[in-house]
Structure formats: structure tokens, C-alpha cells
């Protein structure tokens, strides 16, 4: 498992909506090593405040050594990152963590909620490359409202998977939650659900999958200082009563391993 620190040049800056930004970064070693579900840590300032790097899923990689991140402006770090400009360099560290375990022999059901969609483009791309037929695979994408979902739609249509969208307010796609979508669409037996999104969504998916006997891989979040196993700051409760560490044992876990509230 090789990790790299690169001074990555921003080759493209896309403001997808008021809060959502996509950056393309030239980061050859990271791009070459990355697997879907892994993430990078990015320093958002050259000064000492804010001090810590911020974690972002790898949204996509390209064969010419680029990676993308897709992020929402939430606080000081993402605010600073939103002010980055094409041509500037950002210190990027990755790829980090343990990504999705892709089961090429099984139908896939990719579920992304909100910014949880970020790693799913990379995953869908990889699955569509590894499998000869993706016609029975699903991508379910839910967001709060149109501006969160629409700008990414086209990117997900390209794979030939069955792509469904929903928004909480019905302003785009179906009205409702992705968890309602999955209940209605009923992915075939033996499907593997790959999911990333808010905790409540993951929790409901876990219940659904347990009932249906489906494997459920979830990508989860936690605060992080190092992103690489050095600080032990990123723990979350595990099913066995102990903890697992999101940055190096995750961020993708089998939903069964975790302690859900």
C-alpha cells in the first residue's frame, strides 16, 4: 500500500453549484495507485491555521495522472479550498484507506446520498470496466435538491447502468430518499450494495440489506488528524464493542462490522 505526498497542480476548477465544487488535480502517483473508495488528505492553507488537512474521497482518476475531488463548502477548510485557482498547487496526500471490495461476479447496487456520491463515480467507472455486462447494475443517487444532483447526472449515465435519481424536495428526479428508491427497485438477489452518504441513510440501507440478505459495503466518515493510522483519532464504534479506525481500517466497511445506533 503506497502513499504519496504530491504538490498537485489544479488543472481545472468547476463550480457545480453555489456550494459544490469539483477540482481536477495533476497528481500522477496518487492517480496511478488509487482504488475506488480511497481518499486523499489536502492541506487547505499554507499558514498554521487551519492546521490539519481535510479528507476528501477520490471522485475520479484519469489515465493522464489526474484525480478529481468533489466537495461541499462546510467550514473554514472547504471555504479556503473553494478559493483555490487553476494553476495553483495544493499539497495532496494519498491514496489513503481501504476502498470498496469490488465483486465482479455479482450485481452491483451503488448508492450515493449527498456528497456521498463523490467516490461513486470512480467506483462505477471501475465496475463498468471490470465487468462485461452492467445492465443489471444500479446507481441510485439522492440529494437534497436539484442543484446537488443535476450537475452530476450526465457523468453517471455514461456507464450503461440503471441510473435513478431522487431529491428530498422533488425538484429533480423522483421525490424522496434513495432508501425509498432501493425498496421500490429491489436490486436482484446476490447484489452487493456499495453505499456512501449520511449516517442515517447508511443505517437504513444496512437494515434493508440484512433483511434481504445482501452484502452491504459502506463508506463512512469521522474526524481525522493524520488519515494514515498514526493518531488513532478516527475511531467509530464496532459491532464487537470495540472500535475500528476509519482512516486505515475503512473508510469502507462491511456494514455488519459496525455498531449502528
Amino acid at each position, binding site marked *: *500500500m*503506497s*502513499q504519496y*505526498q504530491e504538490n498537485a497542480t489544479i488543472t481545472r476548477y468547476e463550480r457545480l453549484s453555489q456550494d459544490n465544487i469539483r477540482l481536477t488535480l495533476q497528481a500522477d502517483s496518487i492517480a496511478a495507485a488509487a482504488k475506488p473508495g480511497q481518499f486523499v488528505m489536502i*492541506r487547505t492553507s499554507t499558514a*498554521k*491555521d*487551519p*492546521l*490539519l*488537512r481535510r479528507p476528501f474521497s477520490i471522485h475520479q482518476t484519469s489515465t493522464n495522472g489526474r484525480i478529481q475531488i468533489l466537495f461541499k463548502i462546510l467550514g473554514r477548510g472547504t471555504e479556503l479550498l473553494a478559493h483555490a485557482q487553476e494553476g495553483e498547487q495544493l*499539497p495532496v*496526500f494519498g491514496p489513503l484507506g481501504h476502498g470498496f471490495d469490488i465483486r465482479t461476479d455479482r450485481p452491483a447496487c451503488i448508492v450515493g446520498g449527498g456528497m456521498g456520491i463523490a467516490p461513486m463515480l470512480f467506483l462505477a467507472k471501475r465496475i463498468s470496466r471490470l465487468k462485461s455486462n452492467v445492465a443489471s447494475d444500479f446507481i441510485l443517487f439522492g440529494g437534497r435538491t436539484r442543484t446537488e444532483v443535476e450537475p452530476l447526472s450526465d457523468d453517471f449515465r455514461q456507464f450503461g447502468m440503471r441510473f435513478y435519481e431522487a431529491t428530498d424536495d422533488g425538484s429533480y428526479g423522483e421525490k424522496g430518499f434513495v432508501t425509498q428508491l432501493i425498496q421500490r427497485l429491489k436490486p436482484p438477489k446476490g447484489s452487493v450494495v456499495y453505499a456512501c452518504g449520511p449516517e442515517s441513510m447508511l443505517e437504513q440501507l444496512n437494515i434493508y440489506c440484512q433483511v434481504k440478505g445482501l452484502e452491504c459495503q459502506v463508506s463512512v466518515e*469521522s*474526524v*481525522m*488528524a*493524520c*488519515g*494514515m*493510522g*498514526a*493518531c*488513532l*483519532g*478516527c*475511531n*467509530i*464504534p464496532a459491532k464487537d464493542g*470495540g*472500535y475500528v479506525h476509519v482512516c486505515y481500517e475503512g473508510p469502507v466497511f462491511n456494514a455488519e462490522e459496525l455498531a449502528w445506533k
Partner: protein
Amino acid sequence: MEIVRERDPFPDLRVNIGTLRLQNPVLTASGTFGYAREFANLLNLHRLGGVIVKGISLEPRHGNPPPRIVETACGMLNAIGLENVGVDRFIQEKIPYLRGLQVPAIVNILGDSVEEYQEVTERLASIEGVAAIEVNISCPNVKKGGVAFGANPDMAAAVTHAVKENCDVPVIVKLSPNVSDISEIAAAVEDAGADGVSLINTLIGMAINLEKRKPELANVIGGLSGPAIKPVALRMVYQVARRVSIPVIGIGGIDNSRDALEFIVAGATAVQVGTANFINPRVSEEIAEGIGEYVKTEKLPSIRDLIGCLEVD
């Protein structure tokens, strides 16, 4: 090439902590460098003065519930809760890798009672690959109502004694800054036989989530580290170095070689790099390089000529 370089007598960065010989004064701070192996691909461990691993207790510890960390202005709070694999698994699983390193591995230990410190020491004493023991005395003494060992000269001395009597390797006592007079504690552990003191451990702090009206950390309070604490650390190192005659290891907010050199000027024989590892995993190696450059540029006979050279009118 490698060999030629290491034989090259300049710059001379060697320092000693008791009988522990370091090729340069840069160590990694406990709890911020995992068990060293995590960094093997990110920097050249052999270029460091040595590594200090995550604090080890007698029994494995799960540590505190999340959230365990929160960022603060130029710093961070942590309440990891001393999660560790316990001394037995440490010896089985981690020592073999550490033993293979060409630089000393220092084991940081902790306990709830003098007896626990003693027991951990006994198990580590005979193990090849343990170059020195660093004793974290910031832990609460459960038998004494939870006052930290490091807040009381007698308790600090008792722990030092217990460790020192049960091993032959150098013993470094890591001091807590949450005290009225750190040099008094330093003097007490020196008298009790410590071969060196390292300071500072984290300052106790707290952060609040205003929306939830709850503490940011599940443990309510945590330890403050990073650049924010450097002025306090530097002051304490200066005070302690003037008080004791054993070597002092400076810790607190060191981010680059200039920071490290300031600690040495203040009286530190060596330094430890903590939080900065999270922001740049190569930083300790870069600091060692930078110190070498400085010694060359300033044409110092050795880094030892800089220790405690602060001019005060």
C-alpha cells in the same frame, strides 16, 4: 554513497541521552507516529535520531469513544484515551519491526499505578530492540484520587524509581506541563534516577460545540498540541534545562528545523516532533536535514555546541 555519507564526519549531529546514542537530535513524539511502521513508506526512518512509539500499558486499552480529536486555533485537542495493544502484543507484534530499524526505538509507557508502570517495565526490560523507555507521567494515579503522577514531585519520583530499578536501558521521564512549577518535578525525577526528561506533554484543554451545547470531545477534556503551545513548551524547556543536569528533550509545536533549533538553543539536547507528523509525514526527516544544514552553514563543530547557548542579558 549511503555509507560514505554516513561516515562523513560533518555535520556532527550526535547527541546522547544517558547511554543512548542518537545520530541526530530528532525523535518522533509518542502517539503521533504510530508504531513507526506506518511511516516506513513515507520517509527514511534511518535518517531520524530515533522513534518513540505510542504509549503502552500493561493491558490492551480500547481508548475513548469518538470524537477523539478536534482542531483548535493553530493546534488540536486529542483524547485518544491511550488506546494501545498492551505490552504483550506490543512485544509480539511491533518489536520485531522496530528491532530491524537502524535507529533506536524508544518505548513510551503508561499506567494507573506505580505497580503498573513497574510491571510494564519488567516485561520490556529484557526485550532486544527497546533502546530506552520514556515514562508518560501525565496519567492519573487511580489510587490517589486521579491526580496525575506528573503533578506531584513525590509521585513522579516514585514512578521514576519503579521504572529505573527494573530495567537497564536509559529512562526518560516525560513531564506534564499542567503544573505550577515544572522544574520542581524535573528535579524530583532527576533525583530519582531519570537519565533524561522530555517535555512538554499536552496542555489540558477543551472545546465546545455551540450548536449542540456539548463538548466537542466525548471525553470532555483533551490534550492541546501543535504550534499553539510552542511558546509554553519553549519556556518550560528553558526553565527545566537551567534546573537539572540530565539531558532535556524538547517537545511542543515543532513544525520545522528552525523551531527545533530554538528548543536546542533554549537548552534541549534533543527534540520530538508530534502533531506536525499529521500535516506532513516527512517532517521529522526534513527537520533532521534542516538541522544538519544549519550546523554546516553556521560552521558549528557539532550540534552540541548549540545546546543551551541562549544569550540572556
